């Protein structure tokens, strides 16, 4: 690939990803409203929210939280850039992990019971999904012969037929990261429950906007990782449709179940998610798939 092409894809990724993310969040709210028999906000509502938040007077509860908010945003953008540059997938996920740590530290840096609880729950969420996310890279690498994303492109055939177990495990991860029921334990879409939006409690105005923006990037990045499973071959268009379909299924799941507790989440994620991937790695290692 030429340097120009790479630079171009980076620029596109950095500019387009939040647009897609914001739009998806808007469609998410619209669809959820329709599922509940409501009309719901306009699709571009989240952009209004973001601009409004940027326009509010800053209010802070301590310097560290601001530093970590910036850290969260920049690191996620870096992860997106690394992804666009087709770097090592494991490294992309490590950067994403660092970003997650920043978010938690930002929440933990304020002496507020809600923020603290939210931070700790976010940490437990990371405990639940990080190993799955990292492990999911292994079968991909075993199949394509290496960890860089370039290898997936060069592999020449879609991964999903062989790695659908891993794919299902990644869907669990996506559900946790999107904070949808039954996994919305560290904050909830509507902020009036036991921890008042948890990690976000103490952020306000522009800094809340930064975190929101970072969430959009994160959502798009994870969907893009799901898209990798179809990216090559004649069915490449499925790499756009499949993540969107999965995303839609998660929206429905969000609307048909309650929030469950963190202990259940960790057990479920480790039990089901890790076993799925373990099975997949084993099967690939034994050469059965």
């Amino acid at each position, binding site marked *: 690939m030429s340097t120009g092409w790479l630079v171009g894809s980076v620029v596109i990724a950095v500019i387009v990803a939040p647009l897609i993310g914001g739009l998806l969040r808007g469609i998410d709210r619209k669809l*959820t409203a329709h*599922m*509940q*028999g*409501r009309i719901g906000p306009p699709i571009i509502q989240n952009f209004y929210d973001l601009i409004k938040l940027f326009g509010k007077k800053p209010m802070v509860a301590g310097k560290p939280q601001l530093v970590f908010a910036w850290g969260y945003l920049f690191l996620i953008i870096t992860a997106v850039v690394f992804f666009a540059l087709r770097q090592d997938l494991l490294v992309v996920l490590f950067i994403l992990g660092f970003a997650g740590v920043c978010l938690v530290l930002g929440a933990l840096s304020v002496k507020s019971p809600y923020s603290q*609880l939210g931070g*700790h729950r976010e940490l437990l969420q990371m405990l639940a999904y990080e190993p799955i996310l990292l492990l999911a890279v292994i079968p991909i690498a075993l199949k394509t012969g290496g960890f860089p994303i370039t290898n997936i492109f060069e592999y020449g055939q879609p991964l999903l037929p062989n790695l659908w177990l891993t794919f299902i495990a990644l869907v669990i991860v996506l559900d946790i990261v999107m904070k949808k*029921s*039954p996994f*919305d*334990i560290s904050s*909830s*879409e*509507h902020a*009036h*429950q*036991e*921890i008042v939006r948890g990690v976000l409690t103490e952020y306000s105005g522009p800094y809340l906007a930064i975190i929101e923006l970072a969430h959009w990037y994160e959502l798009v990045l994870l969907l893009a990782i799901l898209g990798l499973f179809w990216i090559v071959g004649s069915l490449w268009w499925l790499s756009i449709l499949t993540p969107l379909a999965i995303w839609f299924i998660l929206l429905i799941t969000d*609307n*048909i*179940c*309650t*929030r*469950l*507790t*963190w*202990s*259940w989440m960790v057990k479920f994620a480790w039990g089901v998610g890790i076993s799925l991937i373990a099975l997949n790695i084993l099967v690939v290692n034994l050469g059965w798939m």
Partner: protein
Amino acid sequence: MLPEPIHLKLELEDETVVGVTPIIGYIYRGIEKAGELNPFRNNVFLVERICGICSFTHALCYCEAVEKLMQVEVPPRARFIRLCWSELSRIHSHLLWLGLFADAMGFESLFMQCWRAREIILDISEMTAGHRIIQSTSIIGGIRRDIDKEMAKEVEHKLSDFKELMDNTVSPTVYNDPTIKRRTVGKGMLSKEQANLLGAVGPILRGSGVPLDIRQTGYAAYKETGFEPIVESDGDCYARTIVRLREIYQSRELILKALSLMPEGDISVTVRGNPPEGEMIHRAEQPRGEVVYYIKGNGTRNLDRLRVRTPTFANIPPLLTMLPGCELADVPVITLSIDPCIACTER
């Protein structure tokens, strides 16, 4: 999403609750004192606003207490219509609660469906009483508005719409959904003995297997319509949920029965004079349980004393025995399972 402030000072260890201190007083207005300053007829509107959710039952209980004290015989038609409004407010309160309960578990779409069904009840209320939630129709000596034949037909029609909506959306989910069960079954246990000992009332008591409902005493027109309390024996949050859900259906049946049995006649009698010297206690079943009114007249137009014992107040000790040892995530669920009404508690 509890719309009212109650401050539970929780001590947590990790996410397990080890200590609970309820801190109240945020909504204390001094209504009982104001009840002594107002003329006794105006108190009907004041006690209705002790709580906007079960406001009709407050008014009903107050009116019946005064009527008993003044030995006024209320026309039977008024008693039947009072029953209708009382049950309407029970349905709307239970649905409101079910919605909030679902939301406390993060089940937003169930919340929306509950409140959507509730709007039908509010429309009935608005049509018959002139306001969505605060009916202001019970007065000393009867009621202010009649439900005529045409309106009764409309009410029946709306109630059948309501049943259809409930049968299709809310009930199957609440009865069957595994995630709801996971969050409620076995949470906030209260045994029959404890419930009796701690003086629980209403659906909490009945959820623990005690068949006690003040409607059995037959006030308003309950004697004529007949009444059997609904009981579940498990004593957990799920049992309380089922009690309330079944009561919604039961209330609907009661309204239909009352509308069909309703005799013709006046809807109120004129009450002259002031309450005589003397005391009176009257009880009624609110959506949340038993409410007790104590009044003391002194022959003037002001009461000597107005005292209300509300159901949530009785249910707080059981709540405090349920909470320790639960997870923080279960605190809203368990707290809501007693359907706390802080405005009632603090007045």
